[in-house]
């Protein structure tokens, strides 16, 4: 397929794969990503413009999927083990955006502002303040942070972004709803990118009952 030279909507999923996620929760996350992919592939606007990347973090952080178009995207292997190096993940996210997202120039159509979904079920176990502040200050994208379950610490999330949501628990159905909402948000954004001003607030679809917006 010829290289796509138009404006892409870059989407980054930053997922907590620490030990506490093992068992049902990480399985639900795998299913969620699968469902997200399938859902996006049936929406023509998302199909043409959305590019997806997955960053996972446990005792370290890695970009398991670089920014890839939907048709070429393969689901990553997700395993849950170790601690919660969210600071590493945020640093990696910043680097990935710098490297992968195209800027507008006289001869190149830049990408739309990246959309980032960050999900964690616990507290960061590394130095997260610096990376969080840097990310927030640079305004690199629209970040939606999700604290899943009772053990999630919302304070670090609030430091990264204004848009913080909370999942009641880590039940399969709750996580399924979360990924469905992520997919809807991506579709809504890809349908309205042209109308969203550079620094304007994005419009997200209303979240399902299992997701609460943290004011």
């Amino acid at each position, binding site marked *: 397929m010829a290289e796509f030279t138009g404006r892409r909507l870059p989407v980054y999923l930053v997922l907590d794969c620490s030990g506490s996620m093992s068992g049902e929760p990480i399985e639900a996350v795998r299913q969620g990503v699968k469902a997200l992919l399938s859902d996006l592939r049936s929406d023509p606007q998302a199909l043409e413009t959305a590019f997806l990347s997955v960053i996972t973090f446990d005792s370290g952080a890695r970009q398991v999927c670089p920014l890839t178009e939907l048709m070429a995207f393969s689901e990553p292997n997700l395993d849950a083990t170790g601690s919660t190096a969210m600071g590493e993940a945020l640093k990696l996210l910043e680097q990935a955006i710098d490297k992968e997202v195209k800027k507008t120039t006289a001869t190149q159509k830049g990408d739309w502002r990246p959309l980032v979904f960050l999900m964690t079920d616990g507290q960061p176990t590394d130095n997260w303040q610096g990376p969080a502040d840097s990310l927030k200050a640079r305004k690199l994208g629209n970040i939606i942070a999700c604290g899943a379950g009772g053990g999630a610490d919302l304070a670090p999330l609030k430091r990264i972004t204004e848009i913080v949501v909370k999942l009641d628990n880590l039940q399969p159905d709750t996580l399924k709803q979360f990924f469905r909402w992520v997919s809807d948000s991506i579709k809504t954004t890809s349908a309205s990118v*042209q109308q969203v001003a550079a620094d304007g607030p994005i419009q997200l679809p209303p979240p399902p009952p299992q997701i609460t917006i943290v004011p």
Partner: protein
Amino acid sequence: MSSELLIQLIRWRLGLPFQADEQALRQAWDGLSETQRWDLADSAAIQLGQLLRQTLTARVERKPLPEHLQWASGLAPLFVSWLGQQTAASPKVAQQLGIVAKRFQRVIADPTPYGPPISQEKVRVGPPITPPPSQVTIRPQMPPRPAISPPVPPRAVVPPPAPVPPPPPPPPVPMSPTAAWKYIPAPLDVPDPHAESDAREFDAPAGFRAFGARVRGKKHKHDGTHCDDWFEATTVNGWTVVAVADGAGSKKFSRVGAKAACERAVADLMVVLADHTFADRDSLSEWSHAIALDSANTFGGPDVERVAEAVRAALGSAYSAVCEAAAARRNGREYEALLNRQIEVNDLSCTLLIAVHKVVTLDGKPCSFVAACQVGDGMIGVVHPNGSWRVLGAADSGGYSGETEFVTSTGKTDPAALKPKSQVYLGGLQALLVMTDGVADDYFPPDEQLGRLWADLTVNAIPEFAAVPDEAVTTTLAGTNLPTREAVAAADYETVLEVVEPLPRTPVTIRSAAEFAELLGVELPALLRSGPLLTAGATLRGPGVVGPTAAERLRLWLDAYHVRGSFDDRTLVAVHRETLPT
């Protein structure tokens, strides 16, 4: 009862060609309870309403009726006659049918069948049915259903004696880049409905032709919303005047602004240019002085400045027209209902691009003069017969994600703000192109890609040109990497794409000028300045994009060519010389 049998049953009852054993149909009908017959009628009415709506849309768009709907083209009189007999239709159905039937009053008044007539041998519907008088008023009724009385008296509609085979199903369509895109017709039951697309052309003065088209983008087709682009073009006193506008995507009534802006701009320019005469000058030095700008951004020749001024003034009065259009709709209940507040000027926001063209004399020879100005994005450009091109002006965009300026943005049409944006061109002209960003974005960056756009239109055989002699084609080809006519005929620079439209979707062959140039082994400017090579690309592989006129071919090309990530409305107006470069 199987759904297939149900369909045949409905066709039989309505006197349409059917394919089933008549005895079986009679038995099936007799076997239905009264409630079941009502349910059947209800669901048939709803289905018919949808099908007939598609039929009407096809008519409004002036497109041929899709083959699978051919049976519906003769159905309108029958349908309204049947409707008229529905004294006790269910409220829901009656309301829906009422809306559809109102649209059909016009269709019925015009008895000319649309599309190829169905030959009488194929369709036997028994005794002819008298069409109802053209002023049929359908009142949605609320009475309870009567105890007895079938929807259609059996005598009025006599099923044909011999079954007619149904049309063959459309062949399966391979997965194409547009397969996931839906087609939903533009809503007719909102205020200010516009035709989905438009295509017009006319002879322009001094050996030029003009044609233009606009189409609904994939996004609007998918969402079932209106095209927000508009264009107007005309001639006066040796001038060709073009205005193109793009309504803001996020504004519900921006199409109203786009139309008002184009119409007012062109009307005003017609008045001013009707009386305009250029000073009597001929030499290069005189003309150079006339089009040079002084430190105050004023053109050296007062007659040139007059034209530039008129174009700027037209942008200003276009803005006034948009304000007037908003004011006229204030207090309109339908607008208030859709917006949850009063309509205001910003709801009609649009961009506007204006260009005017006249042939003047330079060194005793004809030479083209163009004045242009734009507010917002989109592109105005000229292509020279020598294969070079120039973009006139630049898109007004906010930097990052393409937020554009509009005529309704504060101060955008003030003369002082517009003065530095006035563009003037004097030189050879093969084509003047004015377009919205739906086309411009596909040829980005414009300074590099404008020539490729005109080359694409030409090798897709869209503009009409005076013929180039065969010997010229053969001789010129000999010097390229496709040295013979056969080589061009066998060359692959085409893709088959589809228009997003009601099924079945017609395949359209789209050619790439860039690929053709590469196969020839020539650079794009070399292709653009060679009439023989352009003719070869446009004719040796068959007719290209098919249509009765340049405007229709342009409409189809705008609708069909697919660029990933490009879903906007597309509008393009071209003013071009009747002959190709030699």
